[in-house]
């Protein structure tokens, strides 16, 4: 349904050293992309607690992105590996919550990949537009509060 008018609301957690710099490069290179994302700067993708993601969906985000340095390039040695492992589990947990796992995107964007950043964001936005709005999941509260411990054991 490409002609849908639905504008997904996206929260993007970007690591300060690679992805956030990549987003800046997209700006300095004037590469346009879908405006739906709202960026929250974090020091490292490893800083992103699965709790944040759940809270985001809970508060009505239609999609969440976690972007970090490419594996091997982490400014903090291996933070992005932790993130990768953690969110692999997270995807399963989302399914359990009844949230389409495609609504959570984990990807790597380096400081040199402004163009790629724009592509990743626009593509994710397009995909969410197709998935449509995420209905509130407050009913899952219990599951949510018991969740962080479960997922953090990476």
């Amino acid at each position, binding site marked *: 349904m490409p002609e849908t008018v639905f504008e997904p*609301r996206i*929260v993007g957690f970007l690591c*300060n*050293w*690679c992805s*956030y*710099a990549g*987003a*800046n490069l*997209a*700006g*300095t290179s*004037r*590469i*346009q*992309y879908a*405006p739906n994302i*709202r*960026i*929250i*700067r*974090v*020091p*490292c993708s*490893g*800083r*992103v*607690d*699965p*709790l*944040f993601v759940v*809270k*985001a969906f809970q*508060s*009505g*985000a239609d999609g969440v992105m976690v972007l970090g*340095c490419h594996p*091997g*390039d982490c*400014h*903090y*040695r*291996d*933070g992005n590996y*932790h993130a990768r492992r*953690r969110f692999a589990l997270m995807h399963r947990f989302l399914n359990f919550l009844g949230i389409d796992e495609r609504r959570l995107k984990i990807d790597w964007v*380096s*400081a*040199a990949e402004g163009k790629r950043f*724009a592509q990743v964001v626009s593509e994710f936005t397009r995909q969410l537009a197709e998935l449509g709005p995420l209905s509130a999941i407050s009913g899952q509260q219990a599951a949510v509060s018991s969740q*962080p*411990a479960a997922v*953090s*054991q*990476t």
Partner: protein
Amino acid sequence: MARIGVFVCHCGSNIAATVDVKKVAETVGQLPDVVYATNYMFMCSEPGQKLIQDAIREHNLDRVVVAACSPTMHFRTFSGAIQRAGLNGYMLEMANIREQCSWVHPDKAVGTDKATDIVMMAAAKTRWSEPLFPREIGVTRRALVIGGGIAGIQAALDIANAGVEVVLVERSPSIGGRMAQLDKTFPTLDCSGCILTPRMTEVAQHPNITLYTWSEVQAVRGFVGNFEVDILHKPRYVDASLCTGCGECLTRCPWKKFTSEFDEGMGRRAAIYRPFPQAVPNVPVIDAEQCQAILSLRENPERDKVRCGACLKFCPRKAVDFRQQPTVGTEKFGAIVLANGYSLFDPAVYGEYGYGRYPDVITSIQLERLMNAAGPTGGEIRRPSDGHHPRSVAFLACVGSRDQRVGRPYCSKICCMYTAKHAIMLKEHDPHVQSYVFYMDVRAGGKGYEEFIRRAQEEYGTAYLRGRVSKVYPEGDHMVVMGEDTLLGMPVRVEADLVVLATGVQPQPDADAMARILGISYDGYGFINESHPKLNPVESNTAGILLAGCTIGPKDIPESVAQASAAAAKALGLLSQPTLLGEAMTSWVNQARCAGCFSCEAVCPYHAVERVTLRDGRRAAQVNEGLCKGCGLCASVCPGKVITLRGFSDQALLEQMNVLLLQPGERIYARNSL
């Protein structure tokens, strides 16, 4: 309640053109705890900063949001500004409405809407800001320079001359690098060795420089001001303290037929060798894979008499030691300069050029060795196949440059110039030589460069043919080069006695490995990323690690030297401080609630988490702020959520989402903050 001041910047038209800055300021101004909001043409300007400082005093603000460019651009600027107005530098949040909004969203309605959100989020985050105080850390007043090429040499000398101790690590047997292989240098044509060797000896004799050749950096720990580095010293099998460099061993070694790395395969060397006569240090090294004595020891380490051993027999000082073992030393440094240089593209990838298939197709660096008076042919240019002097030579530019197909779409920058140099030198060697240069564009930006190219064409009669060569093949006793003269739109066939491939510049094959050891980032090719391509061109994105030369990207000698001096200056600036300010945004553990599971300890990349026993006997985690770099891994894995990363606390991050998302559809200012 917080007293927040919001300052929206036009950045000339950079922001104002696609964001209604006035509207943004008004909208955010309505937030309950935003007591002052305004907009101004250039916030980073002197009057702009003054405007902020005045507002802080006038409205006694305790938190400031500057909506302008990226924090990586101007956080320091504004942090300084509010400090001068009496606030803690960390009571500032920057809302990035330029790079991440006005520059990427041309629609003004959309831009304004998004900018408003971004500022809201920043304001929300400041509510949780608290004064932070970076702790002071000591500085080890020593510098490590990795790589003994001209860049490394220059950096080492500059630092050493400033009275600071330097360790220069070079993995080959001698310093000198690529420049030592060259015959002449463009555009002045002064002899490369003549200007380089004095610097090399200066390094060897400098009281402040410790030179480790045949050594490699293995591991790097610690952080700016306090690096701890493991350096591997490979066995040279010659005791440098005894060797006088007389060179007797070189002549006595019976195994002389090995290809010389330094001569790029154009010459031969013995199993015990010195890459070139002016090598520094002038101490030979034995190639363990080819030395009979060492091989015999490998077969049987116990044997007391080795095979061959001629070098030892004839060494007047008995400096040869076949039983030498590798050693690893660990040293402390305050700053590191990476100058590990570049490698050259392997043209065998182009089957159509026949490199490796036809002896008379060689690379430019091989030609340098043939031209060099100290080279394998004593400076006589003889083609490999039959040793004849070539009368017609074809140069192919952009071999491994500007070529998508071989994964090298970038320009190597120096090939145009060194090829012109080669054409000129050939004519100098033999006035009867006709040179042809197949080029795509001549890139000669630089002092005296374009003039140099013109000379090659006008004075030395070099024929420049614009077009990329498709094939090179032998016919009779010459090579045929198939090209198009794209200016005339006609196929050209050049019969050449010698074909020279101007191979492009690429990173060292192990550049990425080196980068990982240092914990710095690199691009898709393996070139190291500068922390800012324009404003921090010699700094990596890790504090205390500086860059010089072709490790960043292709460049010529003067540029490399200039960069080396720049990197040296940066290193000295850092080392001249008695102490450094550490990371202020570090983690702290609320030990009252810590369950002592130590998940944090398990993930901390810097081993900054320590186990302590509290007064009541409970075991709890504690963060060593000197080691903590503020990645926040611990905070995100802590099951009890009792670890806080200052500056990026859970509350600060969640608050940003809340203002953004709760009550879908409605604008945030309609609701009170949490």
